[in-house]
């Protein structure tokens, strides 16, 4: 586990056939309702049973542009698998007996990728004269770009970083999403004629108005969530306290795990504490434990979360993997203060114990601090993974773009059109912190609306 190789082996054909054979092809399949983009799961599994993988691939691609990616990162245990008829009623997550839909999707996605199956161009010649700017190359941007390009529209994707992929590259570690899977999908877009301009921040290098003046007829904003939240407790600016975004970006995007061959450094501690209970926290913990292994440090990485494992928003699979890899879980723990040494490095974390009280607005039981339960633990590196807020780089210079109180762009939910004419948005800049598949769902909806919009120009 010193390396960043993918940890889950995919299905071989035999495995896929066996798993598919368990699917009873319900008359009224409930699984489809569990998929945010409504993949016809019953039909694609049906094609697998018949060994018609081309048809299975086509079925998935009707709704999902990136099956290889979603098959790996979708929280299926909350979605399609939870909706599967084999999941027992009242279970908080999918039962083990539910069909491994995401593994089947991944099998088919990889089959399509390796077989070079490309969704064909259904290009309407009439649309070929239009150029659309897609801002951001994360899940929403890539999906929207692909949809538009397949309709024959000229698309330029603008990415602020030096590499494409957005959170798929800087956020999700390679042991969860191998880079060749991501690169394959991006290369496919290039083959479809999508132009990609990296190192270009819309809102800085050019404004949205300038894009329109440059000949773009519509703009899609897939800006992503941006600004990491911190806890707001004393000592949080001590050295070796990272936001999850920084910690993961240094490793995933900048290859800090390969320092000094790659020049970006990252520190690693003997006692790492990751604060948070989402997938990002799991990713950070699993990266940290790999860095400890690689650095010859006895693995000691703890995830501290205010509630219990049941309430953790992370995928169950990620929690299991983190445990298998040696990550310790400290539940019902609320950080109070980071304590440092004279050189400004963190050395300890002071925290309180919690118990669960009444459910809060999110429906999860609220953590309540137990009076007098304060304790301190050793902590020479901490990663804060408690969520993100909207990045305002673009919205702050675009007053025509209406935003809500969180700074998210407001849209017409039917068309994903913003308050600015010809500007559409999707992904985390609209919905807060969603999943890859939700971002893609919004992007698909926006792409369809953009095509309608262009047709009426």
């Amino acid at each position, binding site marked *: 586990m010193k390396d960043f190789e993918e940890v889950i082996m995919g299905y071989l054909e035999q495995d896929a056939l066996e798993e598919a054979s368990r699917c009873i092809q319900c008359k009224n399949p409930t699984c489809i309702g569990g998929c945010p983009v409504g993949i016809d799961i019953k039909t694609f599994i049906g094609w697998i049973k018949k060994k018609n993988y081309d048809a299975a691939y086509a079925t998935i691609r009707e709704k999902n542009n990136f099956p290889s990616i979603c098959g790996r990162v979708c929280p299926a245990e909350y979605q399609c698998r939870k909706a599967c008829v084999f999941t027992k009623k009242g279970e908080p997550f999918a039962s083990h007996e539910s069909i491994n839909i995401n593994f089947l999707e991944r099998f088919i996605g990889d089959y399509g990728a390796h077989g070079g199956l490309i969704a064909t161009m259904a290009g309407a010649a009439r649309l070929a004269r239009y150029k659309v700017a897609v801002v951001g190359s994360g899940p929403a941007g890539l999906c929207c770009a692909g949809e538009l390009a397949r309709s024959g529209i000229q698309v330029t994707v603008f990415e602020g970083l030096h590499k494409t992929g957005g959170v798929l590259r800087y956020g999700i570690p390679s042991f969860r999403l191998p880079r060749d899977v991501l690169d394959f999908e991006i290369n496919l877009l290039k083959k479809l004629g999508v132009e990609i301009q990296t190192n270009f921040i819309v809102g800085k*290098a050019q404004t949205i108005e300038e894009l329109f003046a440059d000949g773009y007829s519509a703009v899609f904003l897939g800006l992503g969530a941006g600004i990491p939240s911190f806890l707001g407790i004393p000592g949080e600016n001590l050295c070796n306290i990272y936001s999850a975004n920084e910690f993961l970006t240094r490793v995933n995007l900048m290859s800090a795990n390969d320092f000094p061959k790659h*020049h970006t450094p990252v520190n690693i501690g003997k006692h790492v504490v990751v604060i948070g209970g989402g997938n990002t926290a799991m990713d950070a913990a699993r990266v940290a434990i790999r860095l400890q292994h690689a650095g010859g440090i006895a693995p000691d990485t703890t995830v501290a979360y205010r509630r219990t494992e049941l309430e953790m928003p992370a995928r169950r699979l990620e929690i299991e993997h983190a445990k298998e890899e040696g990550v310790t879980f400290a539940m019902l723990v609320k950080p109070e203060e980071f304590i440092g040494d004279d050189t*400004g490095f963190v050395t300890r974390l002071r925290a309180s114990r919690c118990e669960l009280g009444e459910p809060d607005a999110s429906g999860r039981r609220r953590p309540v601090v137990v009076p007098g339960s304060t304790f301190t633990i050793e902590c020479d590196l901490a990663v804060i993974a408690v969520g993100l807020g909207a990045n305002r780089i673009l919205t702050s210079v675009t007053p025509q773009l209406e935003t809500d109180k969180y700074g998210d762009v407001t849209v017409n939910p039917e068309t994903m059109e913003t308050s600015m004419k010809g500007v559409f948005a999707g992904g985390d800049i609209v919905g807060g912190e969603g999943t890859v598949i939700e971002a893609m769902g919004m992007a698909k909806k926006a792409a369809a609306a953009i095509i309608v919009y262009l047709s009426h120009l």
Partner: protein
Amino acid sequence: MNTWCVIRSDPESREDMKVLDKKVLAENIVQVTIQSPYIAAKAKAGQFVVLMVKEEGERIPLTVVQADASKGSIVLIVQASGFTTKLLAHVNKGDSLYSVVGPLGHPTEIKKYGKVILVGGGVGIAEIYPVAQAMKEAGNDVTAIIGSRSKALLILEQEMRLICDSLVVMSDDGSCGRKGFVTEALQELLKKELPALVYAVGPLPMMRAVAQVTKERGVRTLVSLNALMVDGTGMCGCCRVSVAGKVKFSCVDGPEFQADEIDWQELMKRNSVYADKEKHICRLNNLYGV
């Protein structure tokens, strides 16, 4: 043929990030001119770019010293102090950088203040230079105090002299201008007349000392911080700094802040968080070459 294709050249050929010119300004301080039409058209005094020298490189922020929209080029001045700045100092005319993005951060608020004193220490002189130009153009009475350890390290003296109404040169060893720190000259000037604004860029101890001097006299003082960054767009929080007790990100909230509100000690510690790794990679570099 779409004209925009020409300007927005193929990123893989990296015409955009070509080194058009390189000059050695002083010992270990070089000036590079980079082709970057979009940044050149937009950059204002006080803004910065984040660049990578090589694909395996790290992302570092550097102030845009000059932006020439007509030539589509920007000028950066860098002191070879850390590994990446050393790498950058080694690039030659005709080379291409791997990545340049910007212009980032808020521009300096340029308006007619009246009397403005700019203080630049070491390579910080490069950062006050565009502000001096803009302040002068806005009709201010601009005095600059520039200082370095010695004559061999002093940059942009002639350029600053041409812009400023008055220029004071200081050096630690007296090899150019007067012997002493920039803060000594600042204290003397403040005794004569209080300016509407002091703007200072230089090493952290210098900026902190300036903040102390001007706070005593109640003069509004801005500094441009050189916090460590990764993306430079607010995504990571690496550059966070405590300003008036609140957490701010240098990249998107700054890079300029009110000097008397900054927690300097915290910033100094945060800026040396990778000191050991920096030494290590520099040592390797000396052993095995770049």
